[in-house]
């Protein structure tokens, strides 16, 4: 399980890839991944879950905290490439209100 981050489109887009089960075991890695808040303030943030198998409620908490820390308005952080179960969890927890879930 790991988190990989990448810049693209001439550094305008910041993408985080989360591999495996997205739960509290990734807490520190996840926070570290976006810790350079000054750099990320004006970037488009994408959370790419193409390699994520499952997420749990603590992962939802981490995502909310990231939105707060980076001071991003609702629906600006994109969450892309969710599998069916992950998408279902975002749906039933109303996360589509806060994030642009693909």
């Amino acid at each position: 399980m790991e988190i990989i981050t990448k810049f693209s489109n001439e550094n305008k887009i910041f993408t985080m890839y989360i591999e495996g089960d997205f739960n509290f075991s990734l807490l520190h890695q996840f926070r570290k991944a976006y810790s350079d808040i000054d750099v990320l303030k004006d970037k488009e943030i994408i959370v790419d879950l193409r390699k994520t198998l499952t997420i749990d409620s603590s992962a939802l908490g981490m995502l909310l905290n990231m939105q707060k820390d980076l001071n991003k308005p609702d629906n600006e952080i994109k969450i892309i490439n969710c599998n069916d179960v992950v998408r279902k969890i975002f749906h039933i927890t109303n996360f589509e209100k806060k994030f642009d879930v693909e």
Partner: protein
Amino acid sequence: MKKILIVDDIVTNRTLLKQTLRALGGYEVVEAINGREAISQYEKERPDLILMDIMMPDMDGREATTLIKEKMGNDYVPVIFVTALSAEDSLTTALSAGGDDFIGKPFNVEVLASKMNAHLRIRELNQQLNEKNDLLTDLNQNLTHEQELIEYFFENAIKQSFLDENIIKYHMSSMSAFNGDVLLVERAPGGGFYLMLGDFSGHGLTAAMGTLPVAMIFFKMVSESAAVGDIAQEINSQLNKLMPSGMFFTATILELNVRSDTLSVWMGGMPENYCFSKAGKLKNIIHSQHMPLGILDDNEFNSETQVFSVQAEDKIYLYTDGVVEAKNNNAEQFGDDRLKATLVTGNDNRFDAVLNELNDFTGDKNQNDDITLVELTCRHVPALVESHNMPENFHALSWHTSVSLSVEDMRTSDPVKNLTNILCAMPYVSRHKGVLYVLLFEIYANSLDHGILNIKSADKTNDKNFVEYYKRRSEALSKLEEASINFYFSFFIEKEQPFLKIVVQDSGRGYKPENTSNSDDLLHGRGLGIIHNFSEKVSYSDDGKILNVLYKL
């Protein structure tokens, strides 16, 4: 020793020839007394040359010669007529019957010897030629067979390709039997699709060889929903190991997401891609940013991708350099400008417009590289649905099982994964693996955090507390001495609907729902929210210490 068949009905003639040949030396002689016997002797003795009389009872020399020549096939056995007829008549007779030469009677020994030698030399050359022909035929057969086998490999390597005509229009034309251009398309597991268009340097079999590893990596990584930059990185790494230096693979790898609104592109050494809107406006020209694959070492490789917004029905044109480098009879190239102009003026029919223009331009000039043109339409491709059909007349048994998690189990990072795997060995359950895992995980986390460790979920309202919460949780867990969380599972079918009943009891205080109604507040009670939403029915018994969940399979 050359074997000579002498055919003559008169015994003195045969004896004379036989003695002459013996005097010349180097000949073995066999005889026949008429045409009919000549044929049987030919088949039995397989002579190298035949000396044939013309006038004989029981099939004359002409008829016998014609029949023997028919039997020869590719073998060349010269037939020399020995005749008393005048020269002109003899020649005509000899040739029309299929004979090769004649010698007049009475014969001159020198002339006979030289004519025989000349014809035996021709026979030798003919034999050598036949041997080489046989060898070439064998070689050619082997080559054809090998080619068929290789084609089988290639076909299998790329047959998985999802070349849906709704999405992809393509034209591929290779200049030899094997194509150095590669077009692979595959649907992403979660919807949307990936496309790779590439071109190996050179052409023919050597260029096509690399298709095998490339296709295998592509399909494998697409099935894992890998990012295009990562696919490029892996192909680069493998090709770098496999290919001789100087050989490389230019490629575009792109992914259209499930919403058909974002295109991710990694492009190395390929000509531009053109993107047109539904209304026909040229929206984007996508340029290559990287070196071709198979050149750079892993640590030099750059997997950075370009991301573009697209809309449904946008069309993207990709091509290999064979298109723009195609030459006409004046050795001019088709060129980027002509391609772009044809695309821009092509309106609704750009694909055919380019192909027609290219055809007119090159005329009858031979193709000098592999050519591929692709038109891609941004359309929704749904997620792959796994088939979980039960066999007909399948009768599932009802079952119960229980699992008790000890403190040691709780300290391992994820006992729930194990638990889920155990349940998923059963029919009807396996297809719910993803949701069941999440459901059981939330149940387990609630039991552990609130029932056993007694940490309040309200603590998690801000980031600092959130981290603090997990810190306290792990401290509490490491201090924990005696505890258990017991899961009881029952599977049953009611009115043809399978259910899984889950009863959970922990050794601690259990958990009573606190703020489940407060579902608008995202940071509160998310875990319970997930449990409620995924389950058919949730209830508590024994004053909140036991959780009962009914899950519809």
